[in-house]
């Protein structure tokens, strides 16, 4: 149980590290995506019970079920992160068209 | 009773103008005496103002309507401050808040700056941005001292530590050891320099530097407007010296001499006039004749650097004194 928790924290940490260390906009978006997967993993494992089955009620065997709420949270978070990533990718497309490069140093036009 | 305050509201400003112009005259006379020259007559400022009011008022083509309105606003705001301060040793006409007075002190120089920048001349523009830099500079030590004093009143348990009445109640300097007096003198020294800055007197007169920017803010002003700015300068002298009197010497003489009624009023006002006169002489006449002008960059360093450190040192000494006693 603790291992999954530590793993998800590690995934979040790598995603966040990717955001600050990469110089390319696409890599920042990928970093954000990875961090989002980390949070999803953390949310899903919250409701985990050993030996329990997925919380689907139709034709369910009479075994204990896993907690459904965190999975609902994860579903919504996946949808939201999908929308955000799609929007950011289209924006980076636009940035490339306007400034001709994806490097955050050239793109960083708004100085002090 | 309220009509008495209305009369006071109308009378006090006129008295303040006369007193201010008189003080300016004395200031120029003493400065001249210090440089071993005769100097203009004491009533010279009155003649200056009369001359200015007779002259034509020239309004430059490029200036906007604000150019003509701002001298008025500058004088009105100074009149209002006088009502909130214990002018002539009497209790203030209207009860005000120290933070309110601090902010209202900005209005006259702000009006002067707005008038300057809308006068269209580049000299006035440079002069007014120097005046704003000067204003940003001297606010720091001024605000530090006043907030420390009200915090001191607050630690003494005064109900409304920010109101002017609690400043003049004399609780401030009640229990002061020798260390406290040294700290208070240091704060007084910083306050005198800050007042010289607010009046843009020589060491800090970057905004109306005659030589560099041809008369600074009031380069384009003439006639009535310049007369009003002259009156505003005199009023500001009165207001600031009264502020120092409130902060550092709030005690009256009549209680000490034990005379009552009308004589007490006269004695108080004379004592007030002496206090104001001495403060003016030490704060800017001495400075005017001994120190030359600072550059704009040195100005902010002087305020935010050395003067601020001095005031913090004074505050620290007083704090130790409070802890000891």
């Amino acid at each position, binding site marked *: 149980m603790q291992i999954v928790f530590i793993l998800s924290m590690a995934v979040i940490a790598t995603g966040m590290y990717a955001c600050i260390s990469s110089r390319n906009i696409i890599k920042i978006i990928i970093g954000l995506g990875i*961090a989002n997967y980390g949070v999803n993993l953390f949310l899903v494992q919250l409701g985990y019970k050993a030996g329990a089955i997925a919380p689907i009620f139709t034709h369910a065997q009479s075994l204990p079920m896993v907690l459904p709420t965190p999975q609902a949270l994860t579903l919504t978070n996946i949808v*939201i*992160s999908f929308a955000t990533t799609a929007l950011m990718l289209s924006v980076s497309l636009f940035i490339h068209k306007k400034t001709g490069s994806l490097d955050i140093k050239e*793109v960083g036009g708004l100085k002090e | 009773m309220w009509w008495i305050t209305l009369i006071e509201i109308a009378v006090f400003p006129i008295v303040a103008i006369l007193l201010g112009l008189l003080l300016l005259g004395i200031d120029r006379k003493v400065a001249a005496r210090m440089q071993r020259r005769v100097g203009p007559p004491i009533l010279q400022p009155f003649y200056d103002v009369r001359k200015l009011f007779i002259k034509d008022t020239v309004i430059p083509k490029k200036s*906007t309507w604000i150019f003509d309105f701002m001298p008025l606003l500058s004088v009105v705001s100074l009149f209002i401050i006088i009502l909130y301060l214990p002018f002539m040793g009497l209790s203030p006409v209207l009860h005000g808040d120290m*933070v309110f007075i601090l902010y209202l002190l900005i209005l006259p120089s702000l009006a002067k*700056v707005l008038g300057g920048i809308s006068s269209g001349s580049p000299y006035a523009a440079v002069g007014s941005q120097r005046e704003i830099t000067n204003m940003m500079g001297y*606010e720091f030590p001024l605000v*530090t001292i006043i*907030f420390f004093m009200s915090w001191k009143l607050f630690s003494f348990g005064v109900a409304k530590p920010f109101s002017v009445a609690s400043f003049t109640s004399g609780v401030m300097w009640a229990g002061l050891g020798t260390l406290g007096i040294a700290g208070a003198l240091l704060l007084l020294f910083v306050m005198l320099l800050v007042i010289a800055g607010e009046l843009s007197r020589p060491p800090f007169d970057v905004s109306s530097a005659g030589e560099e920017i041809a008369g600074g803010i009031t380069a384009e002003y003439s006639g009535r407007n310049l007369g009003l700015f002259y009156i505003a300068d005199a009023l500001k002298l009165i207001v600031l010296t009264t502020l120092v009197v409130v902060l550092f010497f709030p005690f009256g003489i009549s209680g000490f001499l034990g005379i009552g009624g009308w004589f007490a009023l006269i004695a108080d006002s004379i004592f007030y006039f002496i206090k104001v006169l001495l403060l003016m002489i030490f704060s800017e006449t001495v400075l005017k004749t001994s120190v030359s002008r600072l550059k704009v960059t040195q100005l902010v360093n002087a305020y935010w650097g050395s003067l601020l450190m001095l005031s913090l040192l004074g505050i620290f000494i007083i704090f130790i004194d409070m802890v000891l006693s």
Partner: protein
Amino acid sequence: MTGLLMHLPAISIALPLFSAFLFQLLGRHKKAKHILAISSITVLELMLILQLFHVASAGNSIYVFGSETPVVQLPSSYGIPIRISFQVDMFNAFLSVLTSSVMLLVIIFSLNSLKEDVGKFYVILMLMLTGMLGLLFTNDLFNLFVFLEILSLSTGIMVMYKANKFSVEAGFKYLVISSLSGLLFLLGVGFIYAQYGMLNISVLASIISIGLIEKIALGFMVVSLFLKSGIAPMHMWLPDAYGEAPEYSVLGVAMATLTCSYAFIRLLFVFSVGELGTLLILGGLLSAIIGSTMSLIQKNVNRLFGYLALAEIGFIVTAIGCGLISTESNLVFSTVSGGLFHMLNDVIDLGILFFISGIAIRIKNSKELDNLSGFGDNKILAVFFILAMFAVSGIPPMNGFLSKLIIYESTFAVSPLIPIILMISSIIILSSLVKVFYSIFNGKSNKKVPLNMMVVLFAAVIAMLVITLFPDAVINNLIKPVTDALITKSEYRSIVGV
């Protein structure tokens, strides 16, 4: 009538969403879209004002989604409140009225600035409004995350609405910042859910015992909201977003930032986490200093006002921080009421400044301070700008001075250093506004100011003058109940009888 009042929280979210959907059906009829936008927001505003009066008289009202009767106490079959619920108290009712009136003014202000893409603009504006109202009313942590994301996405698109090189970059930064903050907020929510298995704020607030896990969870949640409301070390995106947003809807973006600051104020007070007060004060002072000093050297007028907004957020956050730290009750009350009163004044004063700069940019169609001059002969605009300048920098008798007076004279009891720094930064704000005055109101040009912009400006100035002339009335029957609603947490917690 009571039926409508009962469903008001849900309607206030549904109406903007539904009208956002309707815009697509109207096709190319620009006139119809304008009418729909204005009418839907006015109806919404009237309902929210109605709700404000209802809450003022009848106390908090709750709305539980998906249960038989919306106002019933949560079914406690499992002992865990499962459904998502909205709770409306004086604080968020007051802010919702403020938000919707700001959005109404923004819509009227941008009536003739929109070329052909009218529908797109209104859809984004309506989504922003939905996000803001949802963020204000929600009583559920995860629901707060969802509305935070809706608000962030739509505000990000609004920032890059002008689609030029700089605004796209500012928008991209806004989106990256928002998704990062949403991510960490969700992490905090996850921790709370792991510990208590429930997400309802008022129930959590009544049973939470602040341990290590709760502290870390609240830390994550609150920091990500600090980032979204632009507090000091994490503020760099704010001037970019305000500088590059379209000049007629930049006030909407400012309102989005203030709504995020509502979110963390609500969380801090409901979960009564006192430790963060010192940090809030440090962050507030730092943003006041950075905001004012950086606004001195700006060349783009909206970017300069962005730094002013940052400094104003610094004032509000310092006051709230002092409220969190201090224990003596009327000190807490006066600091928090100073902060909230300043929030109201700040929205109005910055609104006037943004409207005037919007007018100047629209006529001169350039954002640089140097080529905005030419309004020297426009008397009304100059008077309004001077009044707004006095108000923002707190010169008596304007409304900014009232709230700053309350803030100075209450935070000084916490430590005299705080009002000193705040006062210095408000003097520097004054000088940067003099710089804007110098570059806009000089020289003569007989350009006519469009009517709808003047109407909006008049409305904002009238609101400022009302507060200036009747401070006691505004404080006693608006700011006082709002502060009580925020500070006395008992009613907020006990609404959900578990």
